[in-house]
């Protein structure tokens, strides 16, 4: 396939994934697994797309976009890595080494674009004062869409169109110690992502459930879905105990905040 056409198609996959969180409330099309697989579909190499998608998804698993924090853009990284693996026949592991620098680059670009959009808000303020209501909300639905689309389309198109040979040459120069090192780094990044997720989730006295989930999977070898199902059942059982004292508390129990499941630390 023509490189220009490939670059354009992969760019469009990027726009689709980005607009998922912009226009569809984040249905999760904007995930590395989906983006990389779709690249595999448009470039006609689904197995490679799946392999790269699974590898990048693992790294990004715990990175959640909350408030103003922008995590490294693993979706962008996954899309570009998948395109390179499909176009050059590189292995998923090699493509991964491209995904990480591209993801960091994408993070920087995201910061720039999200700052530019601040100005759209001020244009909208002005438009409302003048009574141009349509112009005000077009800043959101038209210009927001355009800017966020470009934020993904431009770097992907340029990287795929100009970069296949260049990136291939660079990849060939990468020594083994670096490839192995980045492989370990990707495992530590997964640990970081999960730790980041935990830092938002862990409340007082809830750590035991994390440990329980880990033990079920490590000693008993259960899958994540099995652990989740057991978690749901356990939560429903415990809820009966935890919230049973509701009437007592309103009747003036000594300590309405008493929680038998809570540790006393922190």
């Amino acid at each position, binding site marked *: 396939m023509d490189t220009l056409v490939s670059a354009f198609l992969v760019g469009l996959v990027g726009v689709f994934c980005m607009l998922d969180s*912009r226009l*569809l*409330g984040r249905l*999760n099309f904007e995930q590395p697994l989906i983006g990389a697989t779709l690249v595999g579909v448009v470039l006609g190499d689904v197995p490679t797309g799946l*392999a790269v998608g699974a590898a990048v998804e693992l790294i990004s*698993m715990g990175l959640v976009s909350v408030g103003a924090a922008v*995590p490294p853009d693993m979706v962008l990284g996954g899309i570009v890595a998948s395109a390179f693996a499909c176009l050059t026949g590189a292995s998923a592991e090699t493509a991964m080494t491209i995904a990480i620098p591209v993801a960091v680059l994408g993070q920087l670009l995201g910061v720039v674009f999200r700052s530019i959009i601040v100005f759209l808000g001020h244009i909208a303020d002005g438009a409302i004062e003048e009574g141009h209501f349509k112009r005000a909300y077009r800043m959101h639905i038209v210009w927001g869409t355009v800017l966020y689309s470009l934020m993904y389309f431009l770097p992907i198109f340029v990287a795929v169109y100009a970069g296949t040979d260049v990136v291939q040459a660079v990849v060939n120069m990468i020594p083994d110690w670096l490839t192995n090192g980045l492989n370990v780094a990707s495992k530590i990044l997964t640990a970081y992502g999960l730790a980041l997720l935990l830092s938002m989730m862990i409340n007082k006295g*809830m750590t035991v459930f994390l440990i329980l989930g880990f033990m079920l999977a*490590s000693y008993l070898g259960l899958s994540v879905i099995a652990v989740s199902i057991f978690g749901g059942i356990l*939560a429903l059982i415990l809820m009966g105990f935890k919230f049973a004292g509701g009437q007592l508390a309103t009747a003036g129990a000594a300590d309405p905040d008493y929680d038998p499941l809570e540790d006393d630390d922190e």
Partner: protein
Amino acid sequence: MATTKDVSLRKKIWQFFWRSWAIQDSWNYERQMNMGFLYGMVPTLDRCYPDESDPHQLERKKEAYRRHMAFYNCTPQTSAFVLGLSASMEESYAKDPASLDPDSINAVKTSLMGPLSGIGDSFFQGTIRVIAFGLGVQLAQQGSILGPILAMVISIIPSVLITWFAAKLGYQGGHQYLQKLQSGNMMDKVMYVCGIVGLMAVGGMIATLIGATTPATFSEGTLVIQDILDSIMPQMIPLALTGIMYWLIKRGVKTGWLLVIAIVGGIVLSALGVLA
């Protein structure tokens, strides 16, 4: 004042539905989803103040548009509730300006933002996404296209259902329903169940997804460290790595530094033959 044009309830709810999904379209560092919220209110406000040639109505319309340009940030799916509720408040304010204090509209929005994004993010990002993609990756690693498909199905169904009912409840039940949720501590129960399932799933993922091991051996290869570790507790290294990263995050180490630590640390530990 007979200024309000009537549109079917169904149409209104679909408008809240689509527009709450589009709420992040102009997300920015300053007021975050402010323009997104305004966009969600546009059909309601335009119905309330249809006559721009009337200077009095025009002024009130400007005031309402300005009101919804305030800072806003909340999970898109649960935002449908806030959009519906705000729309019902705007409608009663437009009909009878004495019925409520317009400042209370933004006060309600602000007070709902915190709890609803807390529930929304932990449910969609912390629970649904984790389960959907934990399962999806396992299948994709075996080369099955069902992986991404299943992940999307698991993601889309709760998203559609919750957005739809949030919009309906917000617009119709609004105020009283929220009080009911809070008084019957339903909010606490939902958070409690989501917390346990999410944490256990993450625990399981630490054991199944990281997969870091040590190639180190002693006594010329007769003593394999990994075998000893496995006999004590399998997946001990991933647990330790997660613990260290968690500790660094809690110490307030900046994201940029943590990424440097992870990448440089990985290369160094691999070169030294400590981790693989």
